[in-house]
């Protein structure tokens, strides 16, 4: 009998998509802080994600086993770890259940990933601060490309073959917890009175300066915080995917996130979250169009941008009541 069974909805594929949505929410929100609120064109967000992913994975794979054995557990073989929940490991004498011990390692890995990305955010943000608009966009694009090349040439994390054997620590729970955290942090940051300074810089840097806002510090804060959460997203992604390849974190990936931010509305916290959900599902839904998927996706980007801009431009036009505005 043909019909819908429960398994058609709740299965590994849908869980996969749902978890991906969660990770994308983190990525889009962190980028929203940089582009949406602070107006800094960042086309290299995937580079931050990559750093977070690779450093956290390196920790889990290389240092994880030692840490686990200290806690009394011997690490699972790779084959055993490929499951949707970390199945219990073999223990001698442990004072923490296996899954808890592993989550402990995981938390450290995530923090490490976020930290690595944040540091790179600092390294990238500080020198490029005085670049405006397009130039900053290209500099960040370059940053993303450089990160890719560096990863490709690092043998210990797999190089061109990719990084295999990353334990599956991520779960629906951990991903959405981090997503909620990201939303909360970014929300709090931008809604405070200090948070207004982000938007001030986006609107008019010189005016912001004249108001006594320390532009440098605000911009760097945006970059570093955004990078940190991108790193967290990357770490979650790495431990969900079990496999990393530098090709994943390319220019196209950065663009995916930028589209989410612009679609959701620059500086609109919930809007960007919704856009992340929408675009992830859309990408999966387009799969049935096979080869046409990519063509449709690129056309959609153009259409969305034009439609969105008409709306935003109209709003701007209304707000600007100074002087005469010529139309052509």
């Amino acid at each position, binding site marked *: 009998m043909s019909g819908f069974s429960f398994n058609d909805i709740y299965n590994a594929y849908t869980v996969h998509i749902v978890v991906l949505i969660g990770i994308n929410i983190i990525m889009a929100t962190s980028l929203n802080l940089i582009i949406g609120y602070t107006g800094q064109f960042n086309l290299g967000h995937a580079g931050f994600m990559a750093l977070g992913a690779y450093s956290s994975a390196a920790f889990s794979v290389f240092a994880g086993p030692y840490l686990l054995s200290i806690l009394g557990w011997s690490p699972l073989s790779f084959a055993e770890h490929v499951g949707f929940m970390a199945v219990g490991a073999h223990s001698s004498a442990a004072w923490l259940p296996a899954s808890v011990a592993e989550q402990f390692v995981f938390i450290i890995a995530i923090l490490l990933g976020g930290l690595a990305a944040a540091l790179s955010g600092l390294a990238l943000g500080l*020198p490029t601060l005085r670049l405006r608009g*397009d130039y900053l966009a*290209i500099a960040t694009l370059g940053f993303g490309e450089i990160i890719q090349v560096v990863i490709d040439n690092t043998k210990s994390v797999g190089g061109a073959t990719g990084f295999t054997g990353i334990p599956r620590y991520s779960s629906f729970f951990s991903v959405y917890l981090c997503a909620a955290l990201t939303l909360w942090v970014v929300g709090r940051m931008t809604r405070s009175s200090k948070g207004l300074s982000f938007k001030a810089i986006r609107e008019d840097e*010189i005016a912001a300066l004249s108001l006594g806002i320390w532009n440098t510090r605000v911009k760097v804060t945006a970059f570093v915080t955004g990078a940190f959460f991108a790193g967290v997203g990357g770490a979650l992604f790495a431990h969900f995917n079990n496999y990393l390849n530098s090709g994943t974190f390319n220019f196209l990936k950065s663009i995916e996130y930028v589209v989410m931010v612009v679609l959701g509305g620059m500086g609109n916290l919930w809007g960007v979250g919704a856009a992340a959900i929408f675009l992830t599902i859309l990408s999966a839904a387009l799969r049935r169009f096979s080869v046409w998927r990519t*063509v449709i996706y690129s056309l959609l980007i153009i259409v969305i941008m034009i439609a969105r801009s008409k709306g935003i431009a109209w709003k*701007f036009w209304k707000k600007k009541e100074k002087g005469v505005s010529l139309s052509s």
Partner: protein
Amino acid sequence: MIKFFQQIVNGLALGSIYSLIALGYTMVYGVLRLINFAHGDIYMVGAMVGYYAARIFTGGGSATRLGLVLLSSMLVCGLLGALIERLAYRPLRRAPKINALITAIGVSLFLEYFGQWLFGADPKSFPDLIESQQAFNFHGVVFNNIQLMIFIVSFLLMFGLRFIVQKTKIGKAMRAVSFSHVGSQLVGIPINRIISLTFVLGSVLAAAAGILLGLLNHKIDPLMGLMPGLKAFVAAVLGGIGNIPGALAGGLLMGIAETLVSGYISSTYQNALAFILLIVVLLVKPAGIFGKSSQEKV
């Protein structure tokens, strides 16, 4: 020593390809302040159209054949450029910069993916319209006639563009538009037409670059514009974006830098070099070699 000179020659040859593409980039940025990511893909379309044109125009001497191929390619690309400008960029002229940037990326992706469907993802072999022979052999330092041609053409085009921009009325209009949109409208310049024209010009240049590259390398494919496009943009920034001689200089410089790094340091970091160079330039002198740093007025 011979190796060094050969690498310099290699660098100049590679660089002139970047220069050709950079010229078009810089022109469009000059009038629109928009990084036309799709420029590299128009270059690809130029090469593809040339490929099909060469299969249609089989008669005549090699010069006439080349002329016809160039003409048809330039025509199609010019039209394509104008179309893209009209449909995708004009609606966004007053929108925030980032929207226009993303749209440009969207157009680029569209051309690439659509090209993969239309032309087939397989690389094609560009026909031998001009026989590639060694033009020069000086104590072991070699380069061929097509490389020489590209080098000369990029200089010619640079001077030609410069002439148009500095000495003609249309060029004056272009300069006015690049200075201020509102101001040029106030003095009666039809900016839509001027911008379209600039796009057409840029696209025609890209088409020529595509054909020349097809002659040089014989391999063309739908994704051929991706990397060269990005690198040409870096070259344009290097030389001062919006500056025509700068585009040429930037391209040549980048070609040499890439080649020397690959030859003397490590070939694995060759592609990263373009971007490292970019970041260095942006930090040290954002206006580029020939560019003027402008003060932002309150």
